[in-house]
């Protein structure tokens, strides 16, 4: 593989390109879905191929193939170059100039204890069947769906700048959902995704069986819960829930490509424009958003990104002020940054790397505080666990979120269960209303395996972690019309 990658670069160095790189990538996937007691998906998959990206006369071309040999590399290199030449006919006065990056010759491997692909298939499927059996024993549970996914990505990256990077990344995840029908209603409750770049040891630690009955019971209890009225209330949100709020209202708006208009046709643009950098109050002084692609177990912890930039740690929001973006080598120089933040990711060998959300988390509070202590200081509010409905406008301002489990807070205590709760806010107003955080003991690295962006759409993975947090005076209501 390494020789072929170097061969491709030798060809392109001789063709007068500004820059070129190649990724030779092998993905192995295992995917299991069990619905009730029926295994609906028992699939293993391997994708293997290479993509060559060429920058010629300030414009990009990209071509890929699943036939990995010398002859095909010659053909695809030529094709990528030809496409770059076509692009340069429609680049106007703009020329792509890449931020500089040191030459890296390195290897990176996700540290794992147990290779998830070494665990027998029947062991994994029996675990999922047992989860479903447990959930289906609970009254009014009509359906149970459980899932497991494992990924291994082996990649060689080489560039005309002589970087040569070999990486092997493992990702493991399991989740399940109970569906309850009764009281003229349908409700679900999930043991939600908690993916990490880790081995099967992560699955063993999740407590999948131990939580199955509770999850099913909570689904059933939701059938009989009250729906809220429209009201302005305080919220206490758990880390699983906040991971999505952070992803949508902080992660996406601070991707520099969309800030600069690259995604205007589909994923959208952003309110967090560069003139706000260093000045704009994104959140209250308690709010610190840290991007960290070196985070242990983080889904974007890959050693290097897909254009050979070393993974880094930096602030996006510091003490409430917008101070940074996620960037690629193309977009970083457009706001005067000298180095990319290493956020270029492609979802397979046949995809062009684009600017993605890094591992991004809300830092825990410095003062010792438990979730109960946050709740104690709420007269009337709602406590939300987990992710539910979610939607945000294309500039990332107006958002509406649901959740997976809700409790009324009255006079400092969690009281009745609620259902179908939604809340709506405007991004900076919401983060400025944050006035309480739990400390690091309650911080969790939740994350996403299927963050969609780009055209054609690509899927990316990243961790978005959080402690518990309290927000004041948020517009809440019921989801059902």
């Amino acid at each position: 593989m390494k020789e072929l990658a170097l061969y491709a670069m030798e060809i392109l160095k001789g063709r007068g390109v500004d820059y070129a790189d190649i990724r030779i990538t092998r993905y192995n996937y295992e995917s299991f879905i069990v619905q009730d007691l029926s295994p609906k998906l028992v699939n293993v998959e391997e994708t293997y191929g290479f993509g060559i990206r060429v920058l010629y006369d300030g414009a990009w071309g990209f071509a890929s193939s699943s036939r990995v040999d010398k002859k095909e590399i010659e053909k695809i290199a030529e094709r990528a170059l030809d496409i770059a030449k076509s692009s340069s006919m429609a680049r106007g006065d703009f020329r792509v100039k890449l931020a500089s990056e040191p030459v890296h010759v390195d290897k990176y491997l996700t540290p794992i204890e147990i290779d998830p692909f070494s665990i027998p298939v029947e062991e994994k499927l029996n675990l999922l069947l047992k989860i479903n059996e447990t959930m289906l024993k609970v009254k009014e549970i009509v359906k149970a769906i459980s899932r497991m996914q494992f990924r291994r990505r082996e990649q060689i990256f080489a560039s005309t700048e002589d970087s040569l990077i070999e990486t092997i990344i493992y990702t493991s995840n399991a989740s399940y959902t109970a569906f309850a029908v009764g009281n003229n209603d349908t409700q679900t409750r999930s043991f939600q995704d908690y993916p990490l770049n880790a081995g099967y040891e992560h699955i063993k630690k999740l407590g999948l069986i131990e939580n199955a009955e509770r999850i099913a019971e909570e689904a059933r209890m939701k059938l009989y819960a009250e729906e809220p009225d429209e009201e302005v209330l305080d919220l206490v949100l758990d880390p699983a829930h906040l991971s999505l709020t952070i992803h949508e209202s902080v992660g996406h708006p601070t991707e520099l490509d969309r800030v600069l208009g690259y995604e205007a046709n589909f994923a959208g643009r952003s309110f967090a424009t560069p003139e706000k950098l260093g000045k704009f109050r994104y959140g209250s002084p308690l709010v610190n958003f840290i991007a960290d692609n070196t985070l242990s177990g983080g889904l974007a912890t890959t050693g290097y990104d897909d254009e050979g930039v070393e993974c880094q740690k930096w602030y996006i929001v510091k003490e409430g002020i917008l101070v940074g973006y996620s960037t690629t080598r193309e977009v970083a120089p457009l706001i005067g940054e000298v180095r990319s933040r290493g956020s270029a990711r492609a979802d397979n060998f046949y995809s062009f790397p684009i600017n993605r959300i890094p591992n991004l988390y809300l830092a825990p509070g410095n003062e010792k505080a438990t979730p109960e202590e946050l709740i104690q200081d709420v007269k009337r509010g709602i406590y939300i666990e987990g992710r539910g409905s979610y939607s945000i406008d294309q500039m990332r301002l107006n958002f509406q979120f649901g959740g997976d489990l809700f409790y009324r807070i009255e006079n400092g205590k969690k009281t009745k269960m609620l259902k179908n709760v939604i809340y709506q806010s405007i991004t900076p107003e919401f983060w400025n209303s944050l006035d309480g955080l739990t400390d690091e003991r309650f911080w969790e690295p939740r994350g996403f395996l299927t963050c969609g962006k780009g055209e054609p759409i690509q899927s990316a993975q990243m961790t978005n972690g959080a402690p518990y947090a309290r927000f004041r005076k948020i517009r809440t209501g019921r989801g059902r019309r």
Partner: protein
Amino acid sequence: MKEVIAEKIIKESSGDETVVYFMSYNRHYTRFAENRITQNMARDVTEINIEVHFGTRKGSAATTSLNYEDIKNTLKRAEQIARHSPEDPEYVPPLEPVKIKNIERFYEETLNLTPENKALSLRKIFSSASRHGVKVAGLYTNGEREFAVYNSRGHEAYHKSSEVSFSITVQGEDSSGYTAFFDENIERLDLEKEYEGAFKKQELGKNPKEVEPGIYKVILEPVALSNLLLFLYMQMDARAADEGRSFFSGKIGKKIFNELVNLYIDPYSKVNPAIPFDGEGFPLGYINLIDRGVAKSLICDRYWAKKTGRKPTGRPFFFNMDDGQMDVEDLIKEVDRGILVTRFWYIRYVDQKSITVTGMTRDGTFMIEDGKIAYGTKNMRFNESVVNVLKNVLKLGKGKRVGVEYWGSGANYIPTALVSEFNFSSKTKF
């Protein structure tokens, strides 16, 4: 060649049953933004998925390699995983052979469009946009897809289609406009017309005004209505309805929508030809889902059909809704006060049982007053049940194909709809 590989694999398989799936994509994507090409990409991938059954145990393995040794190894992996899979109490055997009537959806000329051709025609649009002080962004795709299924019982399904899609957003200082096109034949695409359409919306929407949230009469253009209907269609599953998990539980035979609403599947339809079989090669025919507002049938897979004594429908991805004769301009004349929506964004379920969804307007939202577009509005969030939308249809206008990205390339055929009530719940800043 696919047939030969499939035959060899099926012969070599130790399984009681074997199914081989091929999905090939040969496409060229040109992305643009800020009045220049930003990504330009060729993708040529074939995925082979082999499913092996031992009794009621099933497993599958997939590869993107076309090397026969790799394909054989993939078969071995499928055999191995199937042997270790638990018995499936909902097992259904592969399909018996059945002939599938082909639909011609392949146009060689669509493939002949080169990256250079595309760059030259886009360059004209970029120049015009720059002259007018606006920015364009979009995606221009052409290519072909093949999908084939072969099984050990002798069933075969094969479909090849060409496709061209073009979408463009014109961004002005405080307004934007959007259009989208999908077809199999490049000759039906008028690039300038698409650009002009989006440009005009951007012009019309300048100096947008803030509108108070509330219930409004709306005109939903085909892209906007299609965005909503996808969430209705996902609920039209017979099993979910029978298990009490869906809005459609107990609704078959009942009038649930306005009588103008006819929703159906028909891959052989002239207005919207589509792949004539589903993901397992099941032949698709006409399925009457909603007839003059009455719920007639639901999508039903083979297992649930057998269990409940129904006829299976297959699992089609593309649907049509009957349209009307009126142009959008005629519909606008019918509105004393209301809002025209070009496109929705980020729609998600809020409550599946009532098919209540939320989302935002985007790229062309206008206030209509006294039968005319009065001004562009800032964007708004809605919380509304798709059921209510279809109950409250007043008139339907001309439809169009709205491209949908699934495993098969295709579109839904969707009208423009005038709807008496639509709930906008909050506003945003642009």
